[in-house]
């Protein structure tokens, strides 16, 4: 068993699916399940790919993949979510199964690869898959803008990678980390890191590189909303976390600039969500704010709780976008006034949506509370009082607009609206809401993510 199968099997399935369109959706189901099961059997460590006589020449001439606990959690989340979202949309979006297979391959590659140029290739694969997924919105201009901004982002990333290669003569991330630490001159890497950070920031929805989000998510449906706001956002947050904690070195003025930008991102996202009346916009601006919080946590070294925050966010955003986008489709508008009284006839959906939203806000008994409490404690431990204040202010704004939204959705308006959620939707909502509840009450979660990178470094040093 080899971690490369996580990427290659979806690719193979995608190539086969082009020959026969009929089997494509079922291939996706099989491959998704296969990946999730396979993850149980894979061992942590480095996997080499390509080359000649790797056993004899097991150095770094080729490409390698790195599977550690961090990547494993991300992979479970991503593959599982893609599978669930596809199952819910099985009837209406069968045509997307080849694209979703490629998206799966691309995202798995992003999370696994240990080679900077290989990362760029997977960035393009998953990016193009994302543009095609958003084309389901039938808004070609927003998708085109997304494509252009994404292309600029990935080009800047490649520029940074190439500059790093010119300086340190390698593309292998682990060797690169060692070379940078050995040289000790962090001023030299500011330029490539800035370029790469911008490139990743585009996909991770960080201010000010997130101009595409409104066009893409503001018109999303039950496929694109959860895919972009749930799956892609989570994957890019994980990737950004990997880069921030393992490769990037933020010091001195660069650290201040990054922190200020991220803090602005949190506040701007929440303020824009506060001032919007469209439900989808409220959700997307809130997810911009959340993405910035995650990045801020990684920058400050609060890794484990950032990971839990990513997972909780991905699950919550999936539920919220599914509920709202289904309602928007049936009602024909996403103004919060038009959706007034949505939950009157859908008490169960309303209950789960409320639970999920309360978790995002960070109320006790729910996962969001545990996570927020813990990362705030850790931030306090390293003396980041200003950041705590900013996050608390943002939470208050967030609380106001979410409570306002929930109240509107519960209290009937003048005209009654009927939106039907079928059983599969309801089942997913219940499972996710329960998961957040259980985590929030009975949690003794992992407090240590065993990052195999140190042991891997020893392997590299000795090999």
């Amino acid at each position, binding site marked *: 068993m080899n971690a490369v199968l996580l990427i290659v099997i979806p690719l193979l399935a995608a190539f086969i699916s082009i020959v026969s369109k009929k089997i494509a959706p079922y291939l996706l189901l099989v491959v998704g399940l296969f990946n999730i099961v396979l993850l149980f059997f894979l061992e942590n460590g480095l996997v080499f790919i390509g080359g000649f006589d790797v056993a004899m020449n097991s150095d770094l001439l080729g490409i390698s993949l790195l599977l550690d606990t961090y990547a494993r959690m991300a992979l479970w989340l991503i593959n599982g979510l893609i599978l669930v979202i596809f199952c819910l949309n099985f009837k209406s979006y069968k045509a997307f199964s080849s694209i979703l297979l490629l998206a799966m391959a691309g995202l798995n590659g992003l999370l696994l690869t240990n080679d900077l140029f290989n990362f760029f290739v997977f960035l393009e694969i998953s990016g193009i898959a994302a543009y095609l997924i958003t084309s389901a919105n039938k808004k070609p*201009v927003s998708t085109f803008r997304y494509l252009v901004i994404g292309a600029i982002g990935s080009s800047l990333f490649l520029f940074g990678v190439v500059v790093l290669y010119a300086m340190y003569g390698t*593309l292998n991330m682990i060797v690169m980390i060692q070379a940078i630490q050995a040289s000790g001159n962090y001023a030299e890497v500011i330029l490539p890191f800035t370029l790469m950070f911008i490139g990743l920031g585009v996909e991770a929805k960080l201010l000010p590189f997130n101009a595409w989000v409104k066009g893409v998510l503001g018109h999303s449906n039950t496929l694109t909303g959860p895919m972009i706001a749930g799956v892609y956002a989570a994957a890019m947050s994980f990737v950004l976390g990997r880069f921030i904690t393992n490769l990037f070195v933020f010091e001195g003025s660069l650290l201040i600039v990054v922190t200020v930008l991220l803090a602005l991102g949190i506040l701007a996202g929440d303020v824009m969500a506060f001032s919007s009346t469209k439900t989808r916009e409220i959700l997307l601006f809130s997810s911009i704010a959340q993405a910035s919080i995650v990045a801020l946590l990684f920058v400050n070294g609060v890794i484990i709780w950032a990971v839990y925050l990513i997972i909780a966010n991905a699950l919550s955003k999936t539920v919220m976008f599914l509920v709202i986008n289904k309602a928007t489709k049936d009602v024909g508008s996403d103004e919060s006034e038009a959706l007034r009284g949505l939950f009157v006839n859908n008490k169960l959906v309303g209950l789960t949506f409320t639970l999920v939203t309360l978790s995002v806000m960070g109320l006790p008994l729910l996962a969001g509370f545990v996570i927020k409490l813990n990362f705030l404690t850790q931030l306090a431990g390293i003396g980041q009082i200003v950041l705590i204040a900013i996050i608390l202010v943002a939470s208050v704004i967030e609380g106001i607009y979410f409570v306002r939204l929930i109240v509107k959705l519960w209290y009937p308006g003048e005209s009654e609206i009927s939106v039907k959620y079928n059983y599969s939707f309801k089942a997913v909502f219940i499972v996710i809401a329960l998961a957040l509840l259980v985590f929030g009450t009975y949690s003794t979660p992992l407090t240590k993510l065993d990052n195999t990178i140190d042991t891997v470094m020893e392997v590299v040093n000795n090999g």
Partner: protein
Amino acid sequence: MIQYASIILFVIGIYGLFVSKNVIKMIVSLNIMEIGLNIFIISIGFVGGGAIAPIISSTQDLGLIFVDPLPQALVLTAIVIGVGTTALALAFAKTIYKTYNTFELDEMEESA
């Protein structure tokens, strides 16, 4: 010299993406940016003073000085990826034209 030119070319491409409101022009700018980036990548692997291309006829040639082959391999990949993006962008451009009957982003109804 060529290295500076390639960086400026890259930046010109970004400038074009910033200022132009025409879908086709934006795709042209995207391509200019990519060409600049490709030349830059090749330029970081160039070795002056009579180095030769990394193609040999037999192993006896290995005593010679070569340019760096790795950036060339990367650019081969990058060029093909660029074509993929361009084809897709042009397909979107055609769809945009079908929907709005114009390539000018300013003249369209759909808000960003």
